[in-house]
């Protein structure tokens, strides 16, 4: 099983913060997004992280991973 998490404006846009799903074939961050959000293209400025480290959308995911999608950060 993998966990998808959305934050901030992206969470509001999608209407939920967490999705959990089983994957049965090789996936990248981008392909998981497409699988879960078939009608909504991954916005260009969205940042992606796997297990709390920044990765590119082409990063290959594995079972147990936590995949996060979020808008540009605005802390500090």
């Amino acid at each position, binding site marked *: 099983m993998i966990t998808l998490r959305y934050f901030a404006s992206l969470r509001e846009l999608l209407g939920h913060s967490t999705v959990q799903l089983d994957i049965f074939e090789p996936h990248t961050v981008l392909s998981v997004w497409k699988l879960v959000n078939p009608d909504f293209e991954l916005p260009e400025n969205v940042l992606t*992280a796997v297990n709390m480290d920044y990765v590119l959308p082409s990063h290959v995911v594995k079972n147990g991973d936590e995949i996060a999608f979020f808008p540009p950060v605005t802390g500090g």
Partner: protein
Amino acid sequence: MTVKICDVAFEPFVEIQNFQHELALNGKFGATSIFIGTMRDFNEGDNVQAMTLEHYDGMTQKQLTKIIAAAKTQWQILDCLIVHRVGKILPNEPIVLVSVWSAHRNEAFEACRYLMEELKANAPFWKLEKLATSQTRWVLKNH
């Protein structure tokens, strides 16, 4: 090297003094460089009455720890403290504190600036502003 995430208001000078009190650095540090970010009551030309700071709990701490490790490879710093507020914040309340201790001033100045810039660029925080009109908006630009 300490990272703290606070969901209630914090007093930056109390945090620094408590932390410094614990440091076994008496007589060893000659320089302390501190930055405090405080909530303003205006942004992008609009009056702001409150702000909510969302973060990605866990990733925030992981990224800040990595940023500190990267600073330590570049400058000889004796210790550092980062405190960041989350949750609902009002104008004039501190948002972020970065404090760096070193023997000489260049290291403290440079590392403090670096930590702040990296924090703003990479730590997963997001600001939701509540304007004076009660309208809310996500902050898009992180100057």
